[in-house]
Structure formats: C-alpha cells, structure tokens
C-alpha cells in the first residue's frame, strides 16, 4: 500500500513572528532578520517573537509547568491544529499520532551559579552538591527538562492522545520525525499525524554546548553562504514548526483543504569526511526529489554556515539544479536545531498554498551529523 500524504495544517513561529504570513516575505525578497546581539553578547540569537501564550495555552497552570522550549512547541502545535480545522475536535485528536523532535534540559541558572560558587570552597563537594540540589531545585523543573514532556504537554493542552513518540538528536530528529510519519501514513500505519519540533535559543546552557564546539557565529551578521570563508558558524534561533499530515483519503473524507502534498522525505547519516555531505545530499535528491522541476520551484536550505558542510551542500545543489533559487533559512530565522527541518517544510508548504511556489525541496545538513531532504508539490 502506498498512500499520498497531504499537509493539511501549519503552525509556524520564529523571530519573524507567528503564522505562515509572517514567513512569506522570504519569497518576496523582502525580509529583515531579527537579531539580538546584546542579551547574550558576544553571541547573537534570533529571539522568539513576543507571543500571547493564553491564545494557545489557556490555563496559566499549564504555562507555569513548562519552560520556554515547551511553550513554543505547544503554541505552534495549537496553530497547526487550528489551521487544519482540528482544534478541539476531541474524537479526531484522541486518535491522532504525535511525533516530536525535542532536546530538553532547561536549567535553573541562578541555582547552578550559586552551587558552582559554593562548590569552590565546600569542604565536601559531593555532600554540598547533594544538599543544595535537594533544597534548591524546584521539583517540577524535571518536567521541563525531560525530552518527551513537550509531547506530553501537547497531549495535555490540546488533547492529542493517539500516541506520542519523541525523537532526539538535534537537526536529524526533525528530519526523522517527518520521515517516519510520512512512511507510516504511506504504508497505512496511521492516518493523521501531528509532527514538529521546537527550540529555545535564548538559553545560556545551550549556547554553552555550541560555544564549546566553537560553532557560534560571533561576527556581524552575514549570510550563511558567506560565513565559511570567515571561520564559519551559526546564529541560533528560537522557533517552532508543526505540521498536520494526513492520508489523502482521510483528509478528503473530512473535507479538509490540502496545503501541499508531501511527496517524499529521505534521510541518511553518513560518516563525515571531505565530500561525504555533498555526496549524501546528491543521493537523497535522487531518492526523493528526482521529479522536481525548477520552473515554479525553489530550494529551502537548512545550511548552517559551518565551514566545509555549507560549501559542500551548496555545491551539490548547484550541480543538481543549476540556476534554481536557494533560500537559506539560516539567513532569516537562524539555526533552530530540532525545529529547523519541520519549520522549513512548513514554510515551503505555506509558499505553495499561497502560490509563491508550485514545488519545493527542503534540505537539512546537521551541524555535526545527519542529512535530510523533503520534496513537496502543490495538490
């Protein structure tokens, strides 16, 4: 059995704002990236646009139980359900499958700082650590740290309770979430899925991970394509992207309007070395996008700006589809890790719905590992 997979709902948010319209300036060439270079100087971030949480997370108690990465995701999931006409449709939501790409981990920065300060002079550091953690950590912080609790909160707030699975692994988690949902729908292993990811870049602990890897772009803003020659690096962005995917038959039976058709999603994770990423992107293209036609089509790239992999991806795309417009999502929303691929696919779908494009290919080359590619067409 192979069934067509339709995208029937989009939930987008980033530094550009919320909703599809806020992101379509990408295709008019009329968009100014929003960057905050002060708050975490010398690091820049694309901060989340201000949101009225109450609009998608009505209960204050729910809002309090979440940290920002979860709130961003729950909010975008609500937008996607609304867009698909499924918000509050208890019966369908109870059967809906959920696949979330998530990180996790939030810290209490003040507590961490106090403990590190105290540890310096503590006579018995291990015992000191135990005592401070036992008395200073909010018990519910754990629930904001657990990776699968973004999905858990979507179940609680929106009633999506068919079954939930959480994929981890940075960019590739977002790629595989869409790949598995697509494969399951196509094979009849599920009819309706909510798929997406969320990322909060405005966290010193996540900046720390990437700064250890020397991967953050600290110079004045430049396009991802121009960064490799200058040392390379990415600017993290806060964002979330969720999509409702349905078997065509299921969507038609409920009279849903398709946004776009998700033709194929391909993924691989090759051992990195010179030329490996370029070859991987080319192979994924052959697998998933051989029917792409450049007329009325565009490529949305998840290129990071990191030296080596960025040039290889660009080279592969230029070889495959010379002359086709390539929009670097990293230039406008930043690098949004787990959210990058689902959000970029959502932006491509929005462009197809509003007739900016008839077809699109979305790429992801993870900053450390993993390559992915999606091919979308109008219905």
């Amino acid at each position, binding site marked *: 059995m192979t069934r067509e997979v339709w995208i029937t709902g989009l939930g987008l948010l980033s530094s550009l704002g919320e909703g599809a319209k806020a992101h379509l300036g990408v295709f008019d060439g009329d968009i100014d990236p929003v960057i905050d270079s002060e708050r975490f100087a010398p690091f820049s971030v694309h901060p989340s646009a201000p949101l009225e949480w109450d609009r998608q997370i009505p209960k204050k108690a729910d809002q309090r139980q979440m940290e920002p990465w979860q709130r961003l995701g729950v909010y975008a999931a609500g937008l996607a359900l609304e867009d698909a006409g499924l918000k509050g449709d208890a019966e369908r939501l109870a059967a809906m499958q959920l696949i979330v790409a998530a990180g996790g981990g939030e810290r209490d920065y003040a507590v*961490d700082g106090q403990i590190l300060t105290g540890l310096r002079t503590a006579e018995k550091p*291990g015992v000191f650590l*135990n005592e401070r*953690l*036992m008395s200073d950590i909010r018990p519910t912080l754990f629930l904001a740290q657990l990776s699968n609790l973004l999905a858990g*909160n979507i179940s609680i707030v929106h009633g999506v309770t068919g079954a939930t699975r959480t994929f981890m*692994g940075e960019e590739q988690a977002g790629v595989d979430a869409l790949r598995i949902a697509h494969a399951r729908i196509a094979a009849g292993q599920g009819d309706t899925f909510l798929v997406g990811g969320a990322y909060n870049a405005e966290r*010193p602990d996540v900046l720390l991970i990437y700064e*250890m890897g020397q991967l953050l772009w600290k110079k004045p803003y430049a396009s991802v394509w121009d960064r490799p020659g200058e040392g390379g690096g990415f600017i993290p962005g806060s964002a979330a992207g969720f999509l409702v995917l349905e078997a065509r038959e299921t969507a038609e039976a409920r009279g849903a309007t398709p946004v776009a058709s998700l033709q194929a999603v391909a993924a691989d994770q090759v051992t990195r070395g010179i030329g490996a990423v370029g070859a991987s992107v080319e192979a994924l293209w052959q697998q998933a996008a051989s029917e792409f036609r450049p007329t009325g089509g565009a490529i949305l790239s998840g290129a990071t700006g990191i030296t080596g992999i960025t040039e290889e991806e660009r080279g592969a795309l230029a070889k495959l589809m010379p002359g086709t417009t390539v929009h670097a999502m990293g230039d406008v929303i930043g690098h949004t890790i787990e959210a990058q691929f689902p959000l970029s696919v959502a932006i491509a779908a929005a462009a197809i719905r509003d007739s900016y494009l008839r077809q699109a290919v979305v790429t992801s080359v993870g900053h*450390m590992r993993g390559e992915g590619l999606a091919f979308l067409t109008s219905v």
Partner: protein
Amino acid sequence: MAQQHRDSFGRPIVAVTGMGVVTSLGAGKDENWAALTAGRSGIHAISRFPTEGLRTTIAGTVDFIPVEPFCAPLLSEQLATLAAEEAISQAAIGSAGDFPGSLFIAVPPVEMEWPQRVALAKASGQTGDITYADLLRAAGSGDFKPWHNLFLFGTVADRIRERFGTKGSPISLSTACSSGATAIQLGVEAIRRGENKAVLAIGTDGSVHAEALIRFSLLSALSTQNDPPEEAAKPFSKNRDGFVMGEGAAALVLEDYDHAIARGARILGIVAGVGEKGDGFHRTRSSPGGAPIIAAIREAIADAGLTPDDVDYINAHGTATPENDRMEAHGLTAVLGERMAEVPISSNKSMIGHTLTAAGAIEAVVSLLTIANGRLPPTINYRVPDPAIPLDVVPNVARDAQVTRVLSNSFGFGGQNTCLLFTAEPVT
C-alpha cells in the same frame, strides 16, 4: 520460491533472532537469566557518588564496566555496545561492522553534568560569584571541544551506528519509561512496511548520577527503604514505597521471519503485537479510570491477532510506586477480566530496579527468555500482599510454566503507554 509467511493481517512476521542484555546483575543473557530466576537482587548501596544528605542511597547501578570519570552518555554507550555485540553475534547476521538494517535506540536525554560545569567554572578564573557568562567565556578557549559532541542528543546513536555499521539515519528516541518498548515498536513497523529485512532495536540507560536521582526523589517517586538495599523494590506489595533506579541495556535483532528462515537463523520468538496510547490527563499520573492503559493493552493483543484469553503470562511494568502498580493491575483486570486472578504476572524491577529508558527492551528480552526456558522469574520482596491487587505475582520464587504468549507493559511520564506481545515461533 520460498513460502511467504504473513500474520493474520497480511503483514510480514517479525522474528527475534538475536538478544543481548546487561544489568546490575551482570552482562549477558546467561548470567542475567540465572540471577533473575534465582530471585537475586542487583540493588545495592550507591558508591559512585556520595549519598550523604539524600533520602534514597541505593540503586541498581552497573559498576563492573569502567567509565572513569563517570559520565551518563559514555556509560549508556558502553552498555548499548555490550548488548548489541551479544545480540548481533547470536543472530550471526551481516558481518563485523556491517549490520544490514536500521538502528532504533532509546537513550536517556543527554545533559552536561556537574564535573564539566565545575571544570568550566574553574577554567574561567572567576573568583567571585560564578554565572553562566563565566562558563561561556571559558568555553570560548576551545579547550573543551570534545564536550560539545559528548553532550549532543544524537551522539550515542551515531557512535553505535558507526561501530556496528547500521544503515541509514539512526533514530534516538525517548518516551520516558516506555522508551525501550518504543524502540522495538519502531523496528517492528519498519519491517512490516517492508523497509527493512532486519533492524537493531536497543534500549540503554546508564544515567544514575546525583542530580538524576535527586530529581526523582523530589517527585517522591523513589523508595526510601535503603536498608537492606536488596529488599527495597517491592512491586505489588502493600508496603511498596516507590521504585529503585537501575541501569542496563538490551538489544534485539528483529528480522523479517522469511528472511530469517531463508538464511537458517534460529528464531528466538516473535514480536506479534504492539500497542500504544497517549494520556493527556497529567504530566506524571495516569487517567483515573486507566482508559489509556487499557487501550494500549487491548491494542497490543489485538495487533497480534489474539484475544485477552490467549495471554499466558505478563511481564509487568511493576515499578513499585503506589500509583503504577494499582493502575496496572486495574488495567489488566479490565482487559483480561476475572481470568486475571490466575494469569501469572511478575516484575523484573523487583530485582534490577527500574532501568528507565532501557526497561522496555530489557524486559522484552526477559519475556522471550521466559518463553524459551519455560520458567517464570519471580517478583521478589513480596511479603505483604496488597489486598487491592489480588494477583498471582509469582511471589519470591521462580516457577516452571510453559508459556507461549507474553504481554510486556511499559508506562511512562508524559502519558506514555506502550505494550508488546511476544509469542513463541509460529507453527505454520
């Protein structure tokens, strides 16, 4: 042409052809099976870190694999490697470093740990109050580069992929305490789709450090009956007072049944059914009526083309928290009816503790060993029966019994409920 076997829904049949396991009881199936059927506990006083000032001072840590200094992703990787080596060697599939299929691996969420924070704080040279700005400044030196990769969520899976040569994009997943079962479920689905002839499904967890333990402690989820450690985990008992954290890993080679018999592989059992259902009631508690648990159990049985009357034995989630055991017993009784009073059910967690991310995979291996050996591992520490849970928990001593259809339950925070149904090799 070879005969094509299909299940009652016309799908490829998913066979298990290799299994590996490591827990606090030891490395390998033989050692674990001997200990589990002897009713031996792997729970002990924690020596990995100081426990002064903690309410819980015991766990089923795996201390016989040297990871010095301790770091959760490194131990989790080691445990997964050991289990995968055993499973692949038993399956005798592919060649060294060339496993012919995908990898689905349940890994504990990764995070930077205190020793690394302390090292960064020290390197920052800050002598006053330390903040993350100091840590970030120290990170900029480039001296800590390997820690970037160490603390990425996808690293353990990538290293396992490289080592065993699994194909495609490996999936790292978490569904909290049902993660191990979800890894198997994803593998089953891939084989049923015809995408893979073989997959490697792993659950691993080596994450007992002070903060991890304290988090569960602050949620009052852990047993505090520290002395003697081996008697703390008391699933289904009236005096149960929480779970004991454990570590371990299990790996299963899942294979299209026809592919397995065509190459002459020994069939260890069948993953006949998978079921799952989300629960939107609460972040840590089940819906009061247990409807999602009931739905997951029903779905696993139905997905195997069976009825509740066909279930011979249950490998319980059985964490020993007051809530879990009551809800699990309630859910099972709702599905199996009066017959549930006579269907044996036991909890491996009474001996190895709750291995969290790995639990569903470890308990899958034990379920299949139970079928193969015709012997039910006991629920140890069962001295004070709970009148509200009138079940045959195989109390304290293992029992001989031929079982061919075993249900294994996994439930987790965040409304995760996943059930698997294992059977002996089909007679076709």
